[in-house]
């Protein structure tokens, strides 16, 4: 079934190696589908994700960025996701403040056992990005007005 619109969003998913990447693997081995628009980048921990990476993705034309990590309390490195949680909360709040649709960014905690959750999350997220359409604002925010 072709999508209603021709819009093929670019979506970057940062997944921590220990929980969410494994959760994505489980989604795969359970054959739980989600759109091919999602591309996963493996990082050791959610706390490795620098806000610059997220902005970089938008700069290069991503339409949505999602960060997945171990559930709070389950971090392989004990505390990494707690730092990630604060950083992302503040970053997302700033993007919202700048008038960028906050649906373009998301954090989800996905354990290695949550293949179903991973696939559901990705389906939801892609649907959300479809509803938001192409990312224009982040690309345009600075644009010199003619």
């Amino acid at each position, binding site marked *: 079934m072709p999508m209603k619109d021709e819009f093929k969003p670019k979506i970057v998913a940062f997944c921590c*190696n220990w929980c969410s990447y494994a959760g994505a*693997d489980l989604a795969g081995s359970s054959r739980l589908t989600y759109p*091919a628009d999602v591309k996963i980048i493996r990082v050791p921990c959610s*706390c490795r994700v620098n806000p610059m*990476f997220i902005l970089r993705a938008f700069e290069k034309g*991503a339409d949505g960025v999602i960060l997945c990590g171990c559930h709070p309390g389950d971090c392989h490195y004990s505390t990494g996701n707690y*730092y990630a949680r604060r950083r992302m909360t503040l970053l997302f709040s700033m993007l919202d403040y700048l008038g960028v649709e906050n649906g373009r960014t998301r954090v989800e905690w996905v354990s290695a056992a949550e293949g179903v959750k991973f696939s559901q999350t990705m389906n939801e997220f892609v649907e959300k990005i479809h509803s938001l359409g192409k990312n224009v604002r982040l690309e345009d925010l600075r644009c010199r007005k003619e």
Partner: protein
Amino acid sequence: MQRIGVFVCHCGSNIAATVDVKKVVEMAALEPGVVHAEDYQYMCSEAGQSLIAKAIQEKQLTGLVVCSCSPRMHETTFRKAAERAGLNPYMVEIANIREHCSWIHKDMEEATRKAVILARAAIAKVNLNTPLQPGESRVTKRALVIGGGIAGIQTALDIADAGYEVDIVEKTPSIGGRMSQLDKTFPTLDCSACILTPKMVEAAAHERIRIYTYSEVEKVSGFVGDFTVDIRKKARSVDMDKCTGCGVCQEKCPSKKTPSEFNRGLNNRSAIYTPFAQAIPNVPVIDREHCIKFQTGKCGVCAKVCQAGAIDYEQKDEIVTEKYGAIVVATGFDTIKLDQYDEYAYSQSKDVITSLELERIMNAAGPTKGHLERLSDGKPPKEMVFIQCVGSRCADERGKSYCSKICCMYTAKHAMLIRDKYPDVNVTVFYIDVRTPGKNFDEFYRRAVEQYGVNYIKGQVGKVIPQPDGKLLVQGVDLLDNRRIMKEADMVVLATAIEPNPDVRKIATMLTASIDTNNFLTEAHAKLRPVESPTAGIFLSGVCQGPKDIPETVAQAGAAAVKAIGLLAKEKLTTNPCTAKSDELLCNGCSVCANVCPYGAITYEERQVNDHGIREVRRLAVVNSALCQGCGACTVACPSGAMDLQGFSNRQIIAEVDAICR
């Protein structure tokens, strides 16, 4: 420029049925740096691996991208294959085109497009990979155990029996810990001393165990395999080598007004003392604060009566510096202070006691020689009331939020022992819940009720009111039949919450071991690594990690020992090379990175740098690669980008982002 080889696996039909592997090969070959691209049926097979090895050698490849299943599956396989062919294993990256692509997409065109992008991202990353060498660090074949209770003793014995040297550092004058204060132990009711003392003797006699009593850990530096520890041996004022342990000094000491710590202050001891008769070492110490000689200069009775000439008033604290490969924390617990619980009249009546005090009263070597009697008037009690959960499961700041775990069982034990020895004494237990998970535990509790007639009443006590006649009026309620209970008791025993030894905070700081809000040491993983601290080389034994009873403590002590042995058995530690590294020319020395490091792997040093001709001494972050586990928290905290993670560098991740968004 790298010379990259791309290897696309069919995984039988697992990948090839949905992804056009030929197309992936064709597209990958166009990417910068790629000099070789091919596909094969099963890349992980012997044949597939030799295909890779052949290409590495023939095409002088400097980097590999394997498009296959998840790196969690075969990354190690391909890294080893690369290494065998002479390529640094960290020059291999995996593009996961099975779990993340072929298995979840149905449309071939779409899946192929995605596979190409995933390959492209991996190629972009490999272009920036650098060969990494796992570090090596040596292992000092000696362990330190902090705390000489049953946990510490058991850990030390297990490590020593495996052939390694162990030192125990114990703060008090004797090893033995809380267990030495107990009278009997549940669920078997055997005498605590009878099972503990042989272990104490065994530890003291063990050729590979050294015991530092009356000593404290003062400073810890170094890292896993190579800790350097300063131990303060407090001045005992008694020469350990000369003392024969005859005990005359304690008998003759004129200062006998100091509350005995061992007997929980229920009676007094002399200023020169051993905590209890079976103390190990059986060498007294002089408590200088209460010693007349030290306080006024006049006395010296102990020196006069000591035939061995062991008394040494001039002795000074001594600092011993030792090297260790592993450190086990076994600092144990204490009961909480009850000054916030005035409703139970603990401070108002001598006959309201804690359970640990009851242990001493019940013990033949205790203040009442084992006779159950009221401390106020020495009369035998007829009615005894036990109150459970005093300070446990408490949401406010008066108590602890957790269940102390051991109280239900020891109260059943106390009730049973009293009913057994004094059948005319009535025992009532006020409880909220009776929690008895454990082998033979519930049977034990039921025995207290069914065989010994202990009266269990559900309902927390509201108040204990001391009466003019010395009785204690216990005001409670039976929740199961909504009936007010006003019970006149002769003694009330409070099942007081336990808390980690207050010193553990100081020790955890020295060890950079993390600690939770209740001061329990945090385990590396709550389920899978329960006896290890997140800090490498630090292991946890006993109640310092969380409330537990003796069998659990001993089991955990053994587990901690095994983990320590596993470390000590290694000749060298190879360290994960994917660790953080700081660029000294960019580092501000601001300490932000160290603040987020869960492993204490980052330290600072003042060092001369040459920054494009500017020579100056700067404060610089230094990552200890033996401690760093490679989470990357520091890299994001670092404002200047000085801190980077090898194997997952900023530029590598950005290259992947760019490739995906291209």
